[in-house]
């Protein structure tokens, strides 16, 4: 058996993957990426800002200061809407300009920001622009090769980092995770696949902003760490019309205290059941009096939420993920169980009740830096 395997490997001249075939494969991969990146450059833009000031403490991870360099965006529509990261406007610059691949430059207007996704929409006065081609989320596979591009280092052409898709569903399903180096050098820039289509928009996420309303820069402390995030194109598309209308998008909240415990399966090791064991209820229980819009809609303590806009919510994380598809101010339909009856209620999501808090001292970087 071992002999047969060795004979096969001998035939290919490569015992452990460090032979000539590996080299040829690497060179081929590089050639493909070089050609692909060149095709994408027309829809990647450089953003320059003038003026503004360092943001309030709390917007960024402790100890991080914003740089002075250019940033990146992607052309979303032919008539000049550009998606980027709101990280790039933390200084609140009065002047924003966009520089296209064909050397034309335009003054840009900041239309709106999507706070939980750390994205922003710009508008320039142009026509006939090449919008970014997009890959449907269903086509993504963990392990596929990917490349992040950005103008943050101020060269004539964007710099890149190559990695893989590490996971497809992160940050309540709005982003994918990659080990390509994501940093201020490419926040607002695209993550592309081997076909030259955009699969996501690179933004700072994770870190201190993982589930709480951290500032727009929360997550920057994980730059270049091998854990990076890009917001799915499907999410960007779903939010586009709301942003285009000038609406700042905030995380939405149903407006009632909910049982955040998850069901725990398996028998307890000790005689007394662990405190967080919960029988599977099929939904999320409202454990306190609802407030505001939820109360007005008729939601009551004791109701069990079974779905949000027909997205099943058997447990709290599923409900949070479903609500993450919407923003404060959106109307959603809750299917609830009250006693033995099922009802449907329409609730307007409230802005998140937890105020943004200053992130705790930045997590230690994965690698020490020489000082």
């Amino acid at each position: 058996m071992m002999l047969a395997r060795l004979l096969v490997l001998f035939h290919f001249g490569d015992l452990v993957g460090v032979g000539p075939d590996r080299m040829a494969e690497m060179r081929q991969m590089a050639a493909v990426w070089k050609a692909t990146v060149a095709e994408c450059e027309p829809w990647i833009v450089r953003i320059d800002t003038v003026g503004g000031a360092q943001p309030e403490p709390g917007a960024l991870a402790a100890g991080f200061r914003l740089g002075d360099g250019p940033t990146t965006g992607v052309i979303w529509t032919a008539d000049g809407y550009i998606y980027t990261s709101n990280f790039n406007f933390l200084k609140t610059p009065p002047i924003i300009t966009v520089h296209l691949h064909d050397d034309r430059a335009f003054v840009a207007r900041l239309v709106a920001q999507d706070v939980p996704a750390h994205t922003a929409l710009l508008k320039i006065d142009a026509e006939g622009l090449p919008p970014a081609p997009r890959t449907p989320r269903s086509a993504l596979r963990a392990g596929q090769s990917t490349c992040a591009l950005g103008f943050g280092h101020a060269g004539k052409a964007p710099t890149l980092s190559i990695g893989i898709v590490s996971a497809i569903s992160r940050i309540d399903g709005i982003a994918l995770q990659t080990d390509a180096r994501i940093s201020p050098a490419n926040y607002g820039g695209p993550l592309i696949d081997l076909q030259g289509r955009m699969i996501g928009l690179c933004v700072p996420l994770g870190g201190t902003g993982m589930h709480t309303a951290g500032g727009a820069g929360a997550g920057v402390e994980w730059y270049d760490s091998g854990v990076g995030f890009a917001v799915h194109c499907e999410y960007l598309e779903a939010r586009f019309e709301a942003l285009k209308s000038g609406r700042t998008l905030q995380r939405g909240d149903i407006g009632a205290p909910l049982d955040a415990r998850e069901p725990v399966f398996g028998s307890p090791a000790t005689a007394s059941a662990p405190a967080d064991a919960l029988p599977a209820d099929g939904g999320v229980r409202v454990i306190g009096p609802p407030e505001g819009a939820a109360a007005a809609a008729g939601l009551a303590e004791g109701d069990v939420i079974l779905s949000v806009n027909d997205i099943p919510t058997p447990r709290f994380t599923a409900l949070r993920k479903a609500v993450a598809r919407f923003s404060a101010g959106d109307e959603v339909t809750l299917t609830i169980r009250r006693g033995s009856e099922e009802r449907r209620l329409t609730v307007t999501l409230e802005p998140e009740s937890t105020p943004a808090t200053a992130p705790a001292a930045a997590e230690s970087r994965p690698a020490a830096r020489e000082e």
Partner: protein
Amino acid sequence: MLFPPLCLIACIIAMQPADPPESLDALLQGVQGRVVKVHGGRIGRELGFASGVIVSADGEVITVLSSLLESQSIRVVLADGRRFVARVKARDPRLRLALLAIDAQDLPYFDLQGRAAPQRGDWLIAAANPFKVAEGPEPVSIMLGTMSGRVELSGRRRAQDFPYDGEVLLTDMLVNTPGCAGGAITDLDGRLAGVIGQAALSNLTNTWLNYAIPIDEVAAFVERARSGATAEIHAAAEQAPSAMSLGIRLFDVGGRIRPAYVERVRPGSSAEHGGLRADDLILAVDERPVTSCGDVDRILAERSPGPLRLTVKRGEQVVSLTIAVVDSQ
């Protein structure tokens, strides 16, 4: 039971081509053999260890210019574990590199004339000693990654501007960890493309850079050192035009970032002939972005002669202008 497979393995190894490296295995062994571990004194916050690159058969080694070189005994440890005392032959304060000499012969070395020029997207190999994990006869650590792009370095180190502001190779490998500086960046043929630079923070992104000083600069430094010329700090530009000499007065209110608004254009000046007007905001000089008044004179001082291209914001428009630069102003 084990004998037939071992025979097979022996046959395979014997048949591997020795040179040029067609297999990744042979290539990496060659690269590791040409990179050394450098040790010196630890002073304050500076590390006492770094990496080095062998550039001649008789023992010339490039390493980072750090305070470990002030030590009485600088040691260079080869891939096979042999330890040598090193002396500093030359220093380049601009590149933050130094040339060491060790008393050795017939060493494998990187040919500085074999100018590797990888392009954005090409594979790069890094060979260095991060965290001094390689000790004695252990070869240095290998990383594989990508050539991210070539850009001009705008960096700082401990609140001071990094003295080198020329072109650097950027990579997405983590080569800014302690001990990497002085290590080798090669292309997929094993040719030296750059030497990993001393850790620097980018002024543009405020992140730690993963970069290498390009082989051209390294080779020029070694040339100067071999010919006995002292390392030169980048000479100040002579009689370069300034905003004032072109007839541009900027509205400079002081502070760290002052947008480059034009307060006044001198009548009859080059700037006026080129179409610049008061209240224009200078966005770029020769396509190089301007975020502050200081950038304008800095770019003017560094550029080569020829007409000047200005990109300005005038009202809600972005306008391009060409200003003729006349010698005597």
